[in-house]
C-alpha cells in the first residue's frame, strides 16, 4: 500500500501549477459535476421525473405535518406557522448540503469494490472527487421546497424583526449547511471502516433533518441534550430560529447560543476533516 501512497504523492506533483489544494478541489468538483449533469440529461424524461420526485418526495414530510395540523391546532405548543419555520430552515440548510455532498454515502461501495483506487491516482483531491461523484441536480427540488415552506412561514408569522434577526437568517442556513456537511464527511470517513454501513450516515443526515423539522418541545430532554452537546444539530435551526421567534429555548440555555452556529459549523468541519484524513489513510484497497 506504500505503493498507492507514493503514486498519490507523485500525481499530486502533476496537479495544475500555481493552484492551492482548495482551488484544485473546486475545479475538479466543477468538472466532475458538469460531466454528471450532461450524463443525466441523456435521459430527459427520467430527469424531469426525478426532479419532480425530489421536490414531491421532500414535500411529503410537510404534507404529513399539514395532515397532522388538519386534526390539531398545536403540536408541542407550536402553531403550524412556527413548525413551518423550523421545517423550512431545516430543509434549506440540509438541501444545500445534500446538493453538494449528497453522494458521499456511495463511498462505502467504492471501498468495497476497490474503485476508490481510480480516484486516488487522479491528480485531484479525493474528497472533491467523492463529493462530486454522481452529482445530482435533481436535489434542487429539496431546496426549492424548503424555501417555499419557509416563505409560507414568513408570510403567516408575525415576527418582530430586528437587524440582528434579519442577519441571522442567511447566517443560520449557511452554518446549518456547514454542520450537515461535517456530518456527511464524518459519515463518509466512517465508511472506510464499515463499508456497508452507509445507512448509519443516513440516520444522522436524513434522520437529523427530520428531527429538526419538529419543535424541540416534542422530544425527550435527553434526546435534546444529545443533539445540543454531542452531535450539535440543534445549532442548525432550533436555537437560532427560537431566537428569531422569541420562543423559550430548550434546556434553559442562555440567549447568546443563538449566535454560535458559525463557530459550531467551523469546529465540526475541522473535526470531520481530521476524521476524513484518518479514514483515507486507513484505506487498504481490496487486494485483488
Amino acid at each position, binding site marked *: 500500500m506504500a505503493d498507492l501512497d507514493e503514486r498519490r504523492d507523485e500525481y499530486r506533483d502533476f496537479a495544475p501549477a500555481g493552484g492551492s489544494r482548495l482551488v484544485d478541489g473546486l475545479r475538479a468538483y466543477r468538472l466532475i459535476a458538469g460531466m454528471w449533469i450532461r450524463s443525466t440529461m441523456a435521459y430527459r424524461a*427520467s430527469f424531469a421525473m426525478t426532479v419532480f420526485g*425530489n421536490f414531491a418526495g421532500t414535500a411529503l414530510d410537510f404534507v404529513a405535518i399539514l*395532515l397532522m395540523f388538519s*386534526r390539531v391546532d398545536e403540536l408541542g405548543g407550536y402553531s403550524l406557522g412556527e413548525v413551518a419555520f423550523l421545517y423550512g430552515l431545516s430543509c434549506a440548510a440540509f438541501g444545500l448540503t445534500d446538493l453538494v455532498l449528497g453522494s458521499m454515502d456511495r463511498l462505502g461501495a467504492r471501498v468495497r469494490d476497490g474503485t476508490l483506487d481510480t480516484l486516488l491516482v487522479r491528480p485531484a483531491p479525493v474528497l472533491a472527487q467523492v463529493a462530486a461523484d454522481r452529482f445530482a441536480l435533481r436535489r434542487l427540488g429539496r431546496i426549492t421546497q424548503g424555501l417555499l415552506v419557509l416563505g409560507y412561514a414568513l408570510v403567516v408569522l408575525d415576527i418582530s424583526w430586528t437587524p440582528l434577526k434579519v442577519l441571522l437568517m442567511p447566517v443560520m442556513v449557511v452554518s446549518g449547511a456547514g454542520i450537515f456537511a461535517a456530518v456527511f464527511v464524518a459519515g463518509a470517513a466512517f465508511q472506510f471502516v464499515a463499508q*456497508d454501513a452507509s*445507512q448509519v450516515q443516513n440516520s444522522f443526515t436524513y*434522520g437529523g433533518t427530520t428531527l429538526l423539522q419538529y419543535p424541540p418541545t416534542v422530544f425527550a430532554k435527553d434526546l435534546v441534550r444529545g443533539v445540543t452537546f454531542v452531535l450539535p444539530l440543534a445549532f442548525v435551526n432550533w436555537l437560532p430560529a427560537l431566537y428569531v421567534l422569541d420562543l423559550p429555548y430548550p434546556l434553559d440555555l442562555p440567549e447568546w447560543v443563538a449566535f454560535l452556529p458559525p463557530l459550531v459549523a467551523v469546529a465540526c468541519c475541522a473535526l470531520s476533516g481530521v476524521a476524513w484524513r484518518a479514514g483515507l489513510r486507513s484505506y487498504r484497497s481490496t487486494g485483488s
Partner: protein
Amino acid sequence: MGTGRLYAAVAAGGFRRYSTYRVATAAGLFTNTVFGVVLAYTYIALWDERPGLGGYDQAQALTYVWLGQGLLSAVAVMGGGFEDEMIERIRTGDIAIDLYRPADLQAWWLAADAGRAAFQLLGRGVVPMAFGGLVFHIALPTDAGTWLAFLVAVWLGVLVSFAIRYLVALSAFWFMDGAGVQQLAVLTGLFFSGMVLPLNVFPGALGELARALPWSALLQAPADVLLGERTGFGLLRTYAFQAAWAVGLLAVGRLVQSAATRRVVVQGG
C-alpha cells in the same frame, strides 16, 4: 427439477443472499430505530393533543410507529428489492437471456423477492419492534391467533408490494432508465401505505381514497390486524381486499410483460 423445487431454490437463494450483508442489516436497523424514535415522539405529541385520533389510543399509535419501521424493508416501501436488478437487466439487454430460460419470469422474480422478504421480516423486523416495546409503551397482542392472522396479512402485503414493483420494473422496457418511475413509486408508496402517517388519521375523502388504494395493503392492513381492529368478518374482508389487489396487479403485470416482450426491441449488440 420440479417447478415447485426450482422456485423454492430461488427463494432460498434470495433469503441467503440478503442474509450475507450483516453490516448493512445492522446499519439499517440503526436507521430504523433512529427514525422510529423521532416518529414516536411526534406521535406522542399528536395523540397528547387529540387522544383517540383515528380510533387508536396512544399505545396503539406507538405500536404502529414501530411496526412501520419493522415492515419497511420486508414490504420494500422504499424499494431495494429485485426491481433494481431487473431494471438493470432490461437496460443492458440481459433480460433476453432470462426470457428464454425454461422458467416463468414473473414467478422467478416473485420467488427471489419472497426469499428477500422472509429474511428482512426477521432481520429487520424483530429488533425495531423489540426496541419500541422496551423504550415506549406499546400495545402488542398476547394471543397467538392474532399474531398468526397478522403474519398472513403481512405476506399478502408482500405479494401486493411485489406486484406493484414488477410493474415499475417493466416500465424500464419503455423508459430504459428506471430511476424516475422508481422514485415516483417510492413516494406514492411511502404516502399511501401509511408509512408517513396512519391512513385512518387522513381527513375525509383523502382518507377514503388512501384506504381503497393497493398500498394500504402493505402497512395499514397488517397493522390493523395486529392492533386487534380486524377480527371475524372484518379480518376476512381485509384479506379479500389484499388478495384482490394482489391477483389484479399480478395479472396486469403479465399483460404488460407480454406487451413489452412483443413490441419492444431488446437492448444490446
